[in-house]
């Protein structure tokens, strides 16, 4: 029996061009962790064009930094990439210290590296766990959150907070690592190791997971560089660029670690690069804890560091010192500088301008996931609607950082 003519006409190609449907996905969508809108042009379920709209979480970070003293910027930096707040703290501290022309004491350098890497693991676990949940692997999500919880306990023991740590200070850190830090670290890493093995078994060769990730959201090396991608997104394309290796800061040049790279530049490679980076970060932490020296945790300079509390309450000089630093702020010499660190999502840079007063004249942050979001539209063309979720998950857009 021949099909009615109407049905056969439906499949002709020239018809499809007229059937482009416009669809707005978001800004509040249950499958995207972050407030973001996709203005889609669809041919059936295939994406013809995707315009990504950001800015829903804009809180005027850069403007607010200009209102207070240099030290008062630290709490704001916690809220940039809130999945790895310590790295933002460290990045800002290093930028200002570069302008001040000082270096923090050895013990503080080690502590900063240790906590940065613990933070990086937390960030990667959040990203990977959520990515797994979004493709239906709920178990892995819970495992990752469980592992992150051990690390959050560790962060809490050191900084006093789980997320809003405000742990760095100009010239050092606010609190020293506790005496029993390594006793807390070993069981936490043991649990983490076991959980990573389980997650690896559950996902790496999982048919459903691979079908959703392999070959999706692909980007070529040329495009990745043109879009200024860094971090796991660029390394998944096979470019071994890592700020920790290319321009070592703190003590990274003394530590041994590898930079995992992918080859395809698709979501699966991004996932595997992050997964491998967790292992590398664990290696870094273990080395740094082994070599952790004793000593002061903040520079001994009354123009930069607050005096100890005994001196504030016990002597007039200490009290005046404290008052001047709090009310007027640290006098950063006039000038400007750019300093980059390797954030969990890529190169996290601070461009700061000082006019010599106690307040920042301009603080600009180079947010790594902003560039990933710029490239997202192109990555999605030709893919299906469900691929938005996995690709968006692998870019690991953090609203606080992308929208600032």
């Amino acid at each position, binding site marked *: 029996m021949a099909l009615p003519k109407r049905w056969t006409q439906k499949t002709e190609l020239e018809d499809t061009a007229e059937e482009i449907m416009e669809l*707005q996905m978001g800004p509040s969508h249950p499958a995207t962790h972050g407030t973001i809108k996709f203005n889609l042009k669809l041919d059936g379920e295939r994406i013809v064009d995707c315009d990504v709209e950001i800015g829903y979480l804009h809180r005027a970070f850069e403007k607010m930094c200009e209102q207070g003293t240099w030290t008062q910027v630290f709490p704001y930096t916690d809220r940039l990439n809130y999945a790895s707040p310590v790295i933002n703290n460290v990045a800002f501290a290093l930028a200002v210290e570069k302008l001040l022309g000082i270096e923090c004491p050895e013990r503080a350098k080690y502590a900063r590296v240790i906590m940065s890497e613990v933070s990086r693991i937390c960030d990667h676990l959040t990203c990977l766990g959520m990515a797994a949940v979004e493709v239906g692997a709920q178990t892995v999500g819970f495992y990752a959150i469980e592992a992150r919880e051990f690390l959050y306990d560790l962060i809490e023991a050191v900084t006093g907070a789980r997320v809003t740590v405000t742990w760095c200070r100009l010239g050092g850190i606010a609190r020293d690592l506790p005496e029993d830090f390594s006793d807390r670290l070993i069981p936490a890493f043991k649990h983490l190791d076991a959980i990573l093995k389980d997650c690896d078994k559950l996902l790496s060769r999982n048919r459903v997971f691979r079908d959703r990730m392999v070959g999706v959201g692909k980007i070529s090396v040329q495009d990745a560089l043109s879009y200024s991608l860094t971090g796991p997104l660029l390394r998944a394309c096979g470019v071994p660029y890592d700020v920790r290796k290319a321009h070592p800061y703190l003590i990274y040049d003394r530590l041994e670690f590898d930079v995992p790279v992918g080859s395809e530049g698709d979501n699966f490679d991004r996932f595997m690069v992050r997964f491998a980076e967790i292992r590398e970060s664990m290696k870094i932490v273990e080395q740094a804890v082994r070599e952790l020296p004793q000593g002061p945790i903040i520079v001994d300079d009354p123009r930069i560091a607050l005096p100890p509390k005994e001196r504030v309450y016990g002597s007039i000089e200490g009290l005046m010192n404290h008052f001047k630093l709090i009310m007027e702020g640290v006098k950063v010499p006039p000038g400007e500088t*750019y300093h980059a660190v390797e954030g969990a999502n890529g190169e996290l840079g601070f461009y700061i301008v000082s006019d010599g007063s106690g307040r920042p004249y301009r603080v600009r942050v180079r947010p790594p996931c902003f560039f990933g979001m710029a490239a997202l539209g192109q990555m999605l063309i030709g893919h299906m609607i469900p691929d938005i979720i996995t690709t968006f998950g692998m870019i690991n857009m953090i609203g606080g950082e992308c929208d600032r």
Partner: protein
Amino acid sequence: MIEYLKQHYGSELLAAEVKVGDNVVVVDRERAVTLFRKWRDDPNLKLDFLTDITAVDWLNRKPRFEVVYHLYSFPLKHRLRVKVPVEESDPWVYSLTPLWKAADWLERECYDMFGIRFEGHPDLRRILMYDSFVGHPLRKDYPVTKRQPIVEETDPIVRPLSHSRNRPSRG
């Protein structure tokens, strides 16, 4: 690197120096794009990666704005900061979108925050703020306590994709 720039491009630079360990050059906005292209292709510089674009508002100074570019070279591992002074009365520079795709969003943000126009940008509209936002928030004369007029609610069904209506399609 700064010596090399002074030797080979000295006549085209307004200033070149090393500040706090960073290489900084100041260039004219008319020459900027040509120089960026030359520096990208120069085998001794290979500045092939656009790290960042932003601006600084020097209120009460002339020229008032500085557009600040950060460039990086993957093969040679060095950075360069390029500053382009811009007058308040006519704040524009040429767009870098023909050279780097990342310039698209960075320039949109710079336009949004400082009101600096990028000539030749295919789709210069606000990115972090909404379309009906009045003013440019990172300018120094924008008060931090300023309130914005309340925007009429629009029905997304009646006026779909108002943002991207005139956008050139990539597909």
